[in-house]
């Protein structure tokens, strides 16, 4: 009788499956819930203005909200742009960096507002001949207060926003904010003082490295690897955050996507646009 009670081989195999293979299979299935980490890439490859800034902010917000995005690489190639839009992206970057590392890779140019954003990252790479710096602000003085027969307003500065002298001094204040951002971003690594930094000069990547404006000369892939290393991830996937965030592909050529109706008042002189205060900012209805 006792022999009859002993389980057969099939039964033993079934039990073994139940206790070994089934948990393992379930474990394998459950393990698929552990997402493959993503290093999100944001291409900051245009003038910084309201439309581009909104796109980048959407991508930064996506990275912050999605846990599989463990790090972000900012691929920078921009001459800068408007003050408010630059500050808006900078603040979003700061929020993201509270939880995830961000590394910048300067391609051709990180000038002015683009450098402002670069110092808002954890580590900056550039190419030896990249253009880096151009710290400062450009503005245009309004005309002296005038009155018209057929255009009436409720105050002397309703039309232009502020006196010319105030514009100048406000610009200086914005510059101080920019300088603070550079000082805070670069910290002890900065090897030059304001008398050099605030000249508005643009330096090559090699010079920028010597001055402590960047951390290392290196490629885009190095920046991605560095971001992954800082996030302590491996076997990660690199993904364009624009497509992950569901944004339409960028139209036009980088640096040329400047719809006339959006920013018609950029200075037209040759050179860099810098961190620019467009006159329309002063003419709020």
């Amino acid at each position: 009788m006792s022999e009859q009670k002993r389980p057969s081989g099939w039964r033993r195999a079934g039990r073994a499956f139940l206790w070994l293979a089934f948990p393992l299979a379930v474990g394998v299935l459950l393990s698929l819930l552990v997402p493959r980490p993503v290093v999100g890439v944001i291409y900051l490859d245009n003038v910084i203005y309201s439309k581009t800034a909104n796109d980048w902010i959407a991508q930064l917000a996506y990275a912050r909200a999605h846990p599989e995005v463990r790090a972000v690489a900012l691929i920078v190639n921009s001459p800068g742009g408007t003050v408010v839009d630059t500050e808006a992206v900078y603040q979003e970057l700061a929020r993201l960096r509270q939880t995830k590392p961000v590394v910048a890779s300067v391609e051709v140019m990180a000038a002015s507002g683009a450098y402002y954003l670069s110092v808002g990252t954890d580590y900056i790479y550039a190419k030896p001949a990249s253009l880096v710096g151009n710290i400062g602000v450009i503005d245009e003085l309004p005309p002296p207060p005038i009155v018209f027969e057929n255009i009436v307003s409720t105050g002397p500065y309703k039309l232009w926003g502020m006196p010319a002298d105030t514009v100048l001094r406000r610009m200086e204040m914005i510059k101080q904010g920019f300088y603070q951002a550079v000082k805070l971003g670069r910290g002890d690594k900065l090897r030059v003082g304001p008398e050099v930094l605030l000249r508005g000069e643009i330096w090559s990547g090699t010079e920028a490295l010597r001055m402590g404006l960047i951390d290392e000369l290196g490629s885009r892939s190095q920046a991605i690897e560095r971001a992954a290393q800082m996030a302590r991830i491996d076997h990660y996937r690199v993904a364009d955050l624009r497509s992950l965030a569901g944004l339409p592909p960028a139209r036009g050529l980088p640096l040329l996507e400047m719809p006339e109706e959006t920013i018609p008042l950029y200075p037209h002189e040759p050179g860099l646009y810098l961190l620019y205060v467009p006159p329309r900012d002063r003419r709020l209805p």
Partner: protein
Amino acid sequence: MKRLRVWIALGLLMLPIVARTAWFYRGVYQRQTPVPTPDYASLTMPVPPLATAQPEKASAPVTGKVVALDQAHDNLFGVTEIEALAGAAMGLGARLETVTYESSLTDTLKYASAYMVIAPSLSFTPEEIQQVRRFVERGGRLLVLADPTRMFFGGEVATANSLLTPYDLSFSDDYLYNLVENEGNYRNVLLRQFTPLSLTEGLTTVAFYAACSVNTTTGTPLIQGDERTLSSRTDTGGNLAAAALSANQQVLALGDLTFITPPYYQVADNARLIRRVAEFLVSGERTHSLADAPFLFGRPVSIVATKSITLTADMAEPMGKWQAALRPISVTLNMTALPAPDSDVIVLGSYTPSDDLMPYVMPFLGVSLTETAPITGVKGPIGASILVPGLGKVARSGTGLMLFSRTEKRSTLILLADTPEGLSKLVEMLATGDLTACAVQERVALCSVGKAKSTSAP
């Protein structure tokens, strides 16, 4: 045994999860320090240094001083921009007169005490440069202002420098800047180094709003920046001058115009500097020569007719013209028997020596009114002659003589002719400033006032 199986099952369940996690994740990213961002709320707008509140000492007003303002060289400024300087000069009693395309620089510089040139963009001709040089040689003050922000529209420092180089002054084609300490912007420099002169008296800090640097080796750098004030041309600095005075202290070069304009003239000691510049403009003492006719005098003039001449009605008209011409510079002409104290004097006489004429003629060494032997002209003998230094023997008939002297005490002009008509013609020439019929030297002019009367040989 059953418990062991459960643990094994759980282990097997966790194994793929742990393995996958370990495959992808080497740890958890934890930021060590909060992300630093600028304290935007603490940023403030820089405010300009307040103007010095000390009251200015009242200066004695001047009279008859004219400051000529150049507007004939496409000058890149508006008259309203220099209201502060013009007002300061007028407050001192001077009158501002513009030299426009139509008016003649030559005429204006005859009576102006200062010539002010601001941001010229049209070149000065060699003749104009010569006129300005002669003007300065005779005590006139020259003020040249350049401004780098005006050159953008076509002005060049070379144009302003053409007036300044004879005095070892020149503007550089640059602008001064200071990134460390400035007046709201890097190109608005605060200047605190002053050479102690009347032009810089009472100045502590002036603010220049984009200024050219001024170069001089023999002159005096008046206002200089510190070692942090740099030139845009070289990005180096150290005692760069934004204003300089020529060695003869008659030519002032200022590298900025904006500090004169509202509202910037109210910043720091700018208003005080503007006043000093105005004092510089009106304090020049002109020395006139006959070429400056009719503006030979700077104060009231006594006209003394000597016994040697009888004044006729013909004299009234040219004398009236002369009075009218001198009115803008507040100089009056008064007929008197003897020169009034504190006045210049015009002496009218003939070649016939008289006791009241000779004291005036005597200082002109070499002039002899003693009748000499008749001389012979092209068409024969033309009568008696006189001796004039530099000109030699001169026929009295048909000629008029102007003798001009200037001493510390007074200026004296002696007009001599053979006849009252000849004397009237001399006055007419002086009143209109037309000395084309005269051989003019610095102090002596010999003029043709009519046809010489031929005389028969005895």
